[in-house]
């Protein structure tokens, strides 16, 4: 699927998958540890606010506090173990399942967040790849790359389905930027200090809207050539920087480049830090095979 000639080499596949495992699992470990206090806020939410979604949509009421606390504790531990390559056939599925659970539960209180979707999906792919026997894991890199570009494509298509080509004239973007920042101001949160300036430059918003749509709708091109993947990833990174600057919305998984990593030759990163990685049994194919 991912047209990268380097992936014809099984060693490159193993190395890229190892680097992806380290990056994604380490991100999940840090995120779930840092966000643990915020995740645990759910314990104090009134039951009337409970509105389960996705894999937890079948629930009628909040889960016992102890179960959620256990998952919040287990998630960073399992993800860290997965990142360092310890007992992967056990820790990878546990990390993926617990991350999916805690983020779904966090989304079950009336508001869906869109920052952890790709992390959760990438972890599931890695968990399956690291759990099943067999040496050909090329499919896992392809799947992660498809998930990345697919999310952008779906977001672009949503804009066309909901607003049509009117989204491109810049007015929708103007109103989105203004609304998001206004809501932050009225609810005592930090808004972007640059939003007011951008809104006063009306001529910029049309091209910005077109550029946003280009990044989203042309995302699948990144699968066709390695060079396209690099070019599109650069645009996607710029897109998220703009969202941060003008809307004060942080997509850390994307801004750190981890969401884009399946498309890129990140195995070179593994070679660069190989001495350090070897200390944690991360650089070799052995760690992937034995788990």
């Amino acid at each position: 699927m991912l047209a990268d000639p380097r992936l014809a080499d099984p060693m490159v596949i193993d190395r890229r998958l190892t680097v992806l495992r380290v990056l994604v699992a380490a991100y999940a470990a840090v995120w779930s540890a840092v966000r643990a206090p915020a995740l645990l806020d759910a314990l104090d939410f009134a039951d009337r606010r409970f509105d389960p979604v996705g894999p937890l949509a079948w629930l009628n009421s909040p889960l016992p506090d102890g179960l959620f606390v256990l998952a919040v504790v287990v998630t960073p531990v399992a993800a860290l173990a997965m990142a360092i390559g310890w007992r992967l056939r056990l820790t990878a599925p546990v990390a993926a399942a617990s991350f999916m659970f805690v983020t779904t539960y966090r989304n079950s209180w009336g508001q869906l967040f869109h920052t952890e979707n790709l992390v959760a999906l990438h972890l599931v792919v890695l968990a399956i790849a690291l759990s099943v026997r067999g040496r050909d894991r090329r499919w896992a890199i392809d799947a992660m790359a498809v998930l990345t570009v697919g999310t952008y494509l779906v977001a672009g298509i949503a804009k066309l389905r909901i607003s049509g080509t009117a989204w491109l004239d810049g007015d929708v973007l103007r109103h989105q930027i203004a609304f998001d920042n206004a809501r932050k101001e009225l609810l005592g949160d930090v808004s972007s200090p640059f939003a007011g300036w951008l809104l006063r430059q009306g001529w910029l918003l049309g091209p910005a809207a077109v550029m946003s749509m280009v990044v989203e709708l042309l995302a699948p091109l990144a699968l066709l050539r390695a060079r396209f993947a690099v070019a599109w990833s650069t645009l996607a990174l710029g897109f998220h920087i703009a969202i941060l600057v003008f809307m004060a919305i942080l997509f850390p998984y994307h801004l750190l480049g981890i969401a884009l990593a399946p498309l890129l030759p990140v195995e070179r990163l593994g070679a660069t830090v190989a001495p350090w990685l070897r200390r944690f049994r991360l650089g070799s194919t052995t760690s992937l095979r034995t788990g």
Partner: protein
Amino acid sequence: MATAVVLSPLLREPASDTYPLSTYPMFASDRGADHRIATAVERLPAGTVDRLSPDLIAGTDEVILAAVTVQRSIARSEADELCAEIAARLGAGRAVEVRVETVDVVALIADDADPTAIHVEATCVG
């Protein structure tokens, strides 16, 4: 398989969002410039108000969740309960106002315009 999974949200209505397979509708619709935004403030003795943080409003650091919490409480006629919860977090003797502010969001952000109307839904003292 991954293609089918990630594109499956396209089979749903865009507004039918869920997790983790989102339709990503959040920036897709034209919200317009005029909005009624539900929030909560502290009413000070001098008659002025202080903005409260998402943590004080809804016990979370997520502003969107705080916004939805106030909005839903008002829609479900539970503004008094929410007001009491906020007052309890704020401390004894502090006055809270749950309210809806009508604003032109572009004017507010670009020109620091004031709300055009404020409708108080609940008041309480901790």
